[in-house]
């Protein structure tokens, strides 16, 4: 029912009515992570004014990230080299109707920051060789791919009548919280002819979120409560055995 309504809305908004080549929006702008969260799908609806390829880029909030490399020291594997990257998207996923290489030339993609290969990652440590930085950068992307936080998936688009589409953006259980942006591009003959950006907010909700938030803001009080709670539990547990 909701899907049908959204479609109707889109039909009404569709480029035939407005002068935009591409119109799209998320059915929800909020994902709440509660206890037992196992991931979530957010549905994107869109309409184009004719044929073309659609690319969707989902980007999570930027964080600083440290990549470390282990090597053998006296028989033990320990971290010996590290490179810090600033402003690394904590989540990055690209969806496209066809492989990116077939849709637009690499130079255009680089200009638009589309695709993992074009992800801008700036290393703090300037004294490292470009080759070393490149190795650490590749390791960062590899690690994030393994955690399912970076992906460039092809497909997943469902087209109706050739101009209306919907797509499920899948977020894993370990998705970082914060402000996300969802960019939608319409590409024709290798050129971006329409674009739109939609915000998405992913937040912790419920008791866990409050505990986490409290532990951050009131670290001292949290520590004291943790101690008192454990001491009480210890005392309570000794009561039934007092006369043993």
């Amino acid at each position, binding site marked *: 029912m909701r899907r049908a309504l959204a479609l109707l809305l889109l039909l009404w908004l569709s480029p035939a009515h407005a002068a935009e080549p591409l119109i799209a929006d998320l059915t929800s702008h909020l994902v709440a992570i509660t206890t037992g969260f196992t991931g979530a799908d957010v549905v994107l609806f869109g309409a184009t004014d004719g044929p073309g390829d659609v690319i969707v880029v989902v980007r999570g909030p930027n964080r600083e990230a440290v*990549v*470390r490399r282990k090597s053998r020291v006296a028989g033990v*594997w320990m*971290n010996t080299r590290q490179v810090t990257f600033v402003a690394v998207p904590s989540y990055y996923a690209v969806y496209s109707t066809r492989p990116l290489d077939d849709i637009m030339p690499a130079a255009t993609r680089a200009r638009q920051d589309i695709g993992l290969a074009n992800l801008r990652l700036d290393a703090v440590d300037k004294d490292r060789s470009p080759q070393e930085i490149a190795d650490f950068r590749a390791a960062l992307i590899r*690690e994030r791919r393994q955690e399912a936080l970076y992906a460039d998936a092809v497909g997943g688009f469902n087209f109706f009548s050739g101009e209306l589409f919907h797509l499920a953006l899948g977020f894993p259980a370990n998705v970082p919280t914060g402000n996300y942006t969802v960019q939608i591009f319409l590409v024709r003959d290798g050129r971006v002819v329409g674009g739109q950006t939609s915000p998405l907010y992913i937040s912790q909700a419920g008791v866990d979120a409050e505990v986490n938030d409290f532990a951050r803001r009131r670290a001292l009080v949290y520590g004291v409560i943790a101690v008192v709670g*454990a001491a009480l539990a*210890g005392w309570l*547990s000794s009561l039934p*055995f*007092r006369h043993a």
Partner: protein
Amino acid sequence: MDIYLPIAAISQDVFVLLALGGVVGFLSGVFGVGGGFLLTPLLIFIGVPHAIAVASSANQLVGASVSGALAHWRRGNIDFHMGIVLLVGGFAGSVAGVWFFALLRRLGQIDIAISLAYALLLGTLGSLMLVESTRAVLRLRRPGAGQRKLHQHIWLHGLPFKMRFRRSKLYISALLPLSLGFFAGVLSAVMGVGGGFVMVPAMIYILGMPTAVVPGTSLFQIIFVAASVTVLQAVENRTVDAVLALVLLVGGVIGAQLGTRFGTMLRGEQLRALLAILVLAVAAKLAFDLTVQPDDPYSLETLGE
């Protein structure tokens, strides 16, 4: 049934955690040891981050030692005077230990430091225990051997700042329990253990305390050192997962009661040999993980929120 651990930011099966707390509690009931030195490595094995495993173990330890100390207090087996001197040293040690922990974390070496410390400590401890229990089993067959003097006075006791400890019937330098407490504080901060397995022998052999008051006094000071470590870790490193600690406590309490009953049915020397083998197995696994070539030499840490 999965439970989300808010600080560790991972989901874990609540029954796995209860069972883990239960097993450690059972062992501590059977063998009369704290069990903290097994809890942290086991948490690491199931995938809890090293730093959070250590700090949450310290949190769990507060409850476990309150429970244990109360039992000893009812029997009058705590030397409070000695306990307070020990824990003054312990507070200083926990501050130094948590600071050291934060430093290692910044350097990106905390995981390896924890694993290495555990592998070394458990390896040494397990070997000593195995030798001791084997000897004890042999001695049983030749009765009459191995009587120890009740109290030996060594040169360490003659250091300055002498203090009288009535309950322990001792007149020794306060520097001794202070530095011993300091050491336990550092251990507790870096490894999340109470240090009972180091403290108990040290209190008997170095301080010369009567055996009867040693476990109670050790547990008494562990309560406060573990509490201090928990608060400091929460403030300095934000690594205390109170939910994890509570679940482990619940499992631990049940396990400890079962363990105490089971322990009375077995012979002490054989028990100690079993524990020694278990401790050595954990040490071997940690050592193996440290020396085997990792699948991917690179690792990633995300900073700030």
